């Protein structure tokens, strides 16, 4: 058995799974402190279906704690950004394009020192150890508690970042150190931003991970604890302490992956209909397609891997008006007081669903008077808008099945024009917790290779093998690991057929005996 828990902004959802069978599922309120919400969720599962804590083999948690901490600029550690780039890069120092409020929230300090690599591996400048020691002295005096180190072209060669970490770590043994090559890809400012954000979250990560572990242990569960990452794979708690930033988009990812498992479709469009919006994403071989553009988080440009999600303002709480609009404004959390079926005075999409007999929510007699034509028109409008978004997310002419999840998915028809049948799996309301519970272990390579003539295949194989090795090292069972994503893009104006190769491997979590 395993337990999956998804901690959202409002609700904490939990499921108990045996293989892929859902034994119990609960929804509880998210609590301000980390532990009590988790304890309540596990208790809820226990009440619904008594289980022996010792029989639980793994607990997977997806959480929005870290992204919320950044957005709210709350509980961020005093952080220093060290960039190894001189004599390049001085005109655009670290955090150059950040909102000032977040620079202040991390008490951001910047140090530019010599170092970095050229695209072909030559050194831009040699590392100057005394310069780094001096910077470390200054950080110590300023009370810096976390350090982000970024070296030019470190995704190609990370030696300078590793050496700088040794020097700073020797001098400041208590600070946390985050290295950019472990966090982001090519694109110095975006990778550095992600690394500084990661560094600023390290103390909070330690606190949260301790809290989560304590709640799980408190429930008598001795199995290992994992956290969900943006790409739908898992990290163990040690990794989570070091890379909190990797949890940022785990919410939508878990929902989509849960939908895939529930429906048995691993390539599909997933429509998650909530209270205010419908979010549409696409799964390929069970993993969300990633956004190809830079992603801005709390006003900071980063190059995280984020799922490509398109949202429209249609949800269960959307206001419905005259002839006929649905959303984008929503009554939101006030649905249970404002909607007609709850005795309120606002016509919402939920009222339409109840009037049409698609849902049994509140008091159906309160919407019996609604004009049939209006109900029909509103449902048609919702179907047309959602199918337009699904259509926009499609990348080929091949048919793409549609899976609907989320509390508001009753709004969707059984068939969408141009998209075909809408699959509605059981347990759709806890798809996110199921997504967390079924997550696998991944490994990844993203690097610029100089490919000599005739060596292309060998280089591609090397990259794929490295991704596989990384997945196994992270805890995947070797027999189950396979390449799930591969991308090769030649880079213009560089000599020697420079090509950026990305390979991602995933496999099932190797569960202990």
């Amino acid at each position, binding site marked *: 058995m395993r337990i999956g828990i998804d901690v959202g902004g409002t609700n904490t959802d939990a499921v108990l799974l045996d293989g892929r069978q859902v034994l119990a599922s609960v929804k509880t309120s998210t609590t301000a402190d980390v532990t009590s919400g988790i304890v309540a969720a596990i208790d809820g599962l226990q009440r619904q279906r008594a289980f022996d804590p010792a029989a639980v083999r793994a607990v997977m948690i997806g959480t929005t704690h870290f992204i919320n901490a950044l957005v709210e600029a709350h509980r961020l550690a005093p952080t220093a950004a060290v960039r190894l780039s001189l004599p390049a890069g001085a005109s655009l120092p670290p955090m150059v394009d950040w909102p000032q409020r977040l620079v202040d929230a991390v008490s951001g300090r910047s140090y530019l020192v010599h170092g970095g690599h050229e*695209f072909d591996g030559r050194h831009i400048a040699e590392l100057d150890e005394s310069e780094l020691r001096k910077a470390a002295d200054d950080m110590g005096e300023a009370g810096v508690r976390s350090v982000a180190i970024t070296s030019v072209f470190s995704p190609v060669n990370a030696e300078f970042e590793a050496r700088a970490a040794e020097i700073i770590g020797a001098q400041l043994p208590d600070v946390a150190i985050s290295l950019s090559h472990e966090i982001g890809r090519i694109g110095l400012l975006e990778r550095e931003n992600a690394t500084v954000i990661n560094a600023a979250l390290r103390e909070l990560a330690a606190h949260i991970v301790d809290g989560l572990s304590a709640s799980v242990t408190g429930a008598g569960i001795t199995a290992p604890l994992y956290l969900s990452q943006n790409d739908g794979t898992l990290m163990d708690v040690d990794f989570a302490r070091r890379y909190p930033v990797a949890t940022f988009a785990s919410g939508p990812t878990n929902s989509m992956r849960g939908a895939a498992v529930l429906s048995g479709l691993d390539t599909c469009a997933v429509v998650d209909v909530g209270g205010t919006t419908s979010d549409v994403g696409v799964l390929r071989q069970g993993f969300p397609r990633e956004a190809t553009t830079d992603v801005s988080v709390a006003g900071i440009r980063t190059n995280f891997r984020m799922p490509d999600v398109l949202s429209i303002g249609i949800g269960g709480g959307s206001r419905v008006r005259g002839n006929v609009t649905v959303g984008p404004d929503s009554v939101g959390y006030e649905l249970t007081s404002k909607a007609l079926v709850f005795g309120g005075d606002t016509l919402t999409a939920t009222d339409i669903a109840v009037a049409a007999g698609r849902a049994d929510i509140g008091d159906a007699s309160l919407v019996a008077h609604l004009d049939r034509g209006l109900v029909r028109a509103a449902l048609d409008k919702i179907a047309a808008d959602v199918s337009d978004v699904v259509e926009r997310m499609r990348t080929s002419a091949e048919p793409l099945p549609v899976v609907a999840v989320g509390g508001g998915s009753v709004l969707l028809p059984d068939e969408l024009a141009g998209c075909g049948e809408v699959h509605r799996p059981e347990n759709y309301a806890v798809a996110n917790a199921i997504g967390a519970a079924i997550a696998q272990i991944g490994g990844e390579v993203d690097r610029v290779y100089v490919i000599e003539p005739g060596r292309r295949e060998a280089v591609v194989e090397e990259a794929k093998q490295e991704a596989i090795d990384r997945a196994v090292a992270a805890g995947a069972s070797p027999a189950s690991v396979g390449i799930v994503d591969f991308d090769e893009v030649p880079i*213009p*104006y560089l000599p020697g057929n420079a090509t950026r190769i990305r390979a991602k491997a995933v496999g099932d979590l190797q569960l202990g005996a």
Partner: protein
Amino acid sequence: MREITENDLHDIARGAAILGTGGGGDPYIGRLLALSAVRSHGPVPLVPLAEVPDDAVVLPVAMMGAPTVMVEKLPSAEQVGLAARTLAGYLGKELTHIACAEAGGVNSLIPVVAAAQLGLPLVDADGMGRAFPELQMVLPTLYGIRATPMSIADEKGNRGVLDTVDNRWAERLARSATIDMGCSAMISNYAMSGSQARESLVPGTLSLCAELGALVRAAREEHADPVARVVSRLGGRRLFTGKVVDVARRTVTGFARGEARLSGMDGDTGAELVLRFQNEHLVAERDGVVEASVPDLICTLERETGEAVTTEGLRFGQRVTVIAAPADPRWHTPEGIALAGPRYFGYDIDPIGVTG
């Protein structure tokens, strides 16, 4: 527009990406560099081309190398100024104006950095009216203005001056030096007098970038169609609206060549458009018939937002509108076509001109 301030930089970057015709590099880094230069040195005076005096000493500056490298090894403002100062020193002349060689992409904003840093006015003009991949592809070449003497500078303080027998040699030698400098260098070339500048440059292109950027921004705020406004301002036409269904890329002698296939939507349902590119878009073929080609501008814009999409950024599933716009008429002379027409890029066709 008589000066460039902090507030103009977003618009210029957005408009420059459109004139980049799919290439020219993401202007983001250029915008940040220009922002930092304008913040430290104040707004940059922008001089209309017609007002540049005969005896002015005008130096265009630009970034040369791989945009992919520039986003990793960030250029420095000093490096930009150094390229211009080095060339002025070699020429033994007092520099009076900075100019822009390429209005499309990142090179629209590099001259703003140089002008701010050196405290000089910037000429509101450029050498192409768009972006092109090679250094000799500027209108001054048609007027016999030599690319060299030309300077090249890296971030380490290395400087070089090239003096070559023709502009193609300048491209070749500068390309080698750029690679040794780590594939991102600042250059200054095509030094010219004020009268040569007035004759050979495309007037008003920096203002045009700012105007295009502002049009797109305003259209979005008004929920109007930004693409239609860009088409109308450039006097071009909408070629096709469709979804990217295939992108094939390969690197040939340092350039990213490739094709993108678009499947039609809206009024183009059932048709297919193929875009052929070498960093910039070169040829657009609708159902096998060439509809537009270099030297005219072929731009891919996001169908809804009007934001330019680069050839590197083209991805399956994107919905784009392809537009074509006329290049400066001098590109359509036999000499202009020889320099940057379809045959130069290996397409055995006569250029197809766009009429708005």
